[in-house]
C-alpha cells in the first residue's frame, strides 16, 4: 500500500495532550521538544492540547489521562502515555532508531 519512499516524505502528525503546568505535562513537553531537536531529520507537525483549557478536545480524542501523545499519521494511530521520560518508547513510536 504505502511505498517506503513515501514514508520518509510524509510528515509525522503528533498531538500532545497535557494538563496545564503539572509536572508530568511539563516534563512531557520538554522531553518531546528535546527529542525533536535531536532528530532534525524527522518532519513532524506537533500540536499541543491543554485539556485544562480545552477539555472537549480531550474528550473527543478519548484522551483521559495526561500527558498523552497521539501520533495519527503515518500508519494509523498510536498512543504513548506518560511524561515521555522513556525516550526509547517514544523513538520507536515515531519510527526513529533508538541510539541505545
Amino acid at each position, binding site marked *: 500500500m504505502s511505498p517506503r519512499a513515501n514514508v520518509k516524505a510524509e510528515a509525522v502528525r503528533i498531538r500532545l495532550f497535557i494538563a496545564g503546568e503539572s509536572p508530568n505535562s511539563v*516534563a512531557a513537553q520538554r522531553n518531546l521538544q528535546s527529542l525533536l531537536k535531536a532528530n532534525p531529520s524527522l518532519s513532524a507537525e506537533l500540536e499541543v492540547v491543554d485539556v485544562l483549557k480545552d477539555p472537549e478536545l480531550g474528550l473527543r480524542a478519548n484522551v483521559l489521562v495526561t500527558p498523552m501523545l497521539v501520533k495519527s499519521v503515518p500508519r494509523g494511530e498510536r498512543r504513548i502515555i506518560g511524561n*515521555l521520560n522513556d525516550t526509547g518508547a517514544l523513538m520507536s*513510536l515515531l519510527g526513529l532508531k533508538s541510539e541505545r
Partner: protein
Amino acid sequence: MKSSIRGRGKDAIWRAGTGIAGFDEIVAGGLPGGRVTVVLGDAGSGKTIFGMQALVAGARDFGEPGILVAFEERAQQVFTNLDGFAWKGNASNRAQIGVIDAQLSQTVVHGGDFDIIGLLSMLDAKSKAMRAKRVLFDGLDVFLANLPEPSHARREVFRLREWLQDSGMTVIITAKTEPNDVRPVREYEFLPFMADCVVTLQHRVVGGTALRFLRVAKYRGAEHSANEVPFSIGKDGIEVAATNATTDLRHAVFSERVSTGVKRLDVMLAGGYYRGSSTLISGVPGTAKTTLAAAFASAASRRRERTLLVSFDESPDQIVRNVASVGISLAPHVKEGILKVSSLRSRGAGPEAHVARIRALLREHRAKNLVIDPISALAQSPDDNVAEEAAIQILDMAKSQGITSVSTSLMGNKAAFSEETPIGISTVADTWMHLTYVNQGGERNRALTIIKSRGTGHSSQVRELILAATGVTLADVYSVGGEVLMGTLRWQREDEGRRAHERAARDAGLHEREAELALAETEARARVIAGERAVREATLDRIRVSRREELEQAAAKVRELRGRRGADGPPSERAKKVRRRSS
C-alpha cells in the same frame, strides 16, 4: 415523593439515595451526599451494578444527573451488561447519565509517569455541562495499576479526592479486592481511608450455591449497622436484606380479619388472620400444611383479592390438582388470573435470589396475599443463617406492603425451622400453627394447635383437622383423662354417645307404648265391666219387676180372699200399729 435528604448548612451531611432496595434503610437514607464512597469487592461481586444503580436512581428519582467514568470496561459495555435489569436507564435516563471512557487500551505505549489531572479537567467540563451531581469511577484500581510506580497511586487518589471535595458531587469509586477477601488489593490499601463511606461486597460459594453479602464497613459521622447482610442480584438489581436496619419497623397495623378458608379455624382465631400479618404453618410431611395454606389462597381469591402462591419444587398444575381432591378448587381462580401459582426450584439459586424473585412476582401480580409453600425450602441453602434471614426478609417484605402471608414450614430438616428453637421465623410470624400426627388406636390423625397468634384471643385447644372431598374442617376433640381423642377413637366416642342416646330414646318410647297399652287394656276392661254392669243392672231390674209383680199378685190374691170372707177392719189401722212399734 422521594428526595435526597439535604441539610441546610454547607457541611451538613445529607444522604444520596441509591435506589437499592434495603440498602438505604441500613445507612439511614443513602450514601453520604457530596462525599466519597468506596465500594470494594471481588470480581463478579456486583460493584458495578451497585454503582450504576445509584447513578440511575440519582438521575431517575432525585433529579441528579450522573457521570460514569469507566476505567475497566467501555461504558457501552457497562450499559449492555445492565440490559437484564428492570431499572436499566431508559432513553430519558440515559440522557441524564454521561459517560467517559477512561480505559487505557492494551496497545497504548507506556512512556513514563502520568496523572489524573487531565481526566479531572475533562470530567469537570462534562459535569458542568450536564449539571451532574453524581459520579461513578468504575474500576479505579485498573487505572491505578497502569501507573508506572505503585507509590504514585496514593498521590493520584488524593489528587482525585481533593478535586472531588471541591466539586461537591456524590462520588462512588469501585475497586477490586483480593479474591475471597474484603480488603482492596494490597497496593491500594489506603483507598478505604480516603473515603467517607466504605461498602464491601462479597461473593461466597458455599456448597455450590452462590451467596452474596454486603457490609457497610465505614460511614463517617453517622450511625449505621456494620453487620454483614445478605443481598441478591435480581431483576431489580441489588436487593439488600434490610432486617438489620437501625430504623424502626413500621408496618401498617390492620385490625381487619381475613378468612383462613376454614370456618372453624376462623372461629378459633376470633375471625381469621389479621390482614397484613404473617402466618406460619409448621408440621411434618403429610400433615396438610399445603391444604391449609391453599384454603387461605382460595378464600382470598373468592374475596376477589389478588393472591400469589409460590411453591417450591412442585408444578402449579400439581398443586391445583392435589388440593382439588380435598374440595379446594383453585383452577377457576388461576384461570381468571386473580390467583397466580408460581413454582420455584429450591436448589440452584441462593436464598437471596429467591427473595428477589418473590419480590418481583409480588410486584408483577400486585398481590395482596402471599402463600409460600414451603418457606423452609429456603433451608436447602447450605447456610442456615442465610436461609433464615431470607425467610424473615420475605415475611418482612410482605408485611411492609400490607400483604397477608401464609407460609408453610416443613419440620424436621433444619434446626432453624424446628419447633424447638425459640429463634427463627416462628418469632417473626404473627400467627404460628403447628400440625402434628397423633397416633392412637392404630391410627394417625392430624392435629392442629395454635401455638401463638399475636393480638388474638385464640383457642389453645388442639383440634382435629379433617380432610374430606368436600373440604377441610376442624373437629372438636374428646379429652379423656387428659388425653385427646381423635379419628376413629373420637368417632367411637361420639358414636357411643349417639347410641346411648338412641337407646334412651328407644326405651322411652317403649315405656310410653306400654303405658298406652295398659291404659287401652284398662279402658277395654272398663268397657267390658260397664257392659256386665248394664247386664246385671238389667237382670236386677228384671228380678225386681218380677218380684213386685209376684208380690202384687200375692196381695191381690189376699184381698180377693179377704173380700170373699168379709174383712175385719180397714188395713190402715193395722199399719199404724206397726209404725208405732218401730219408732
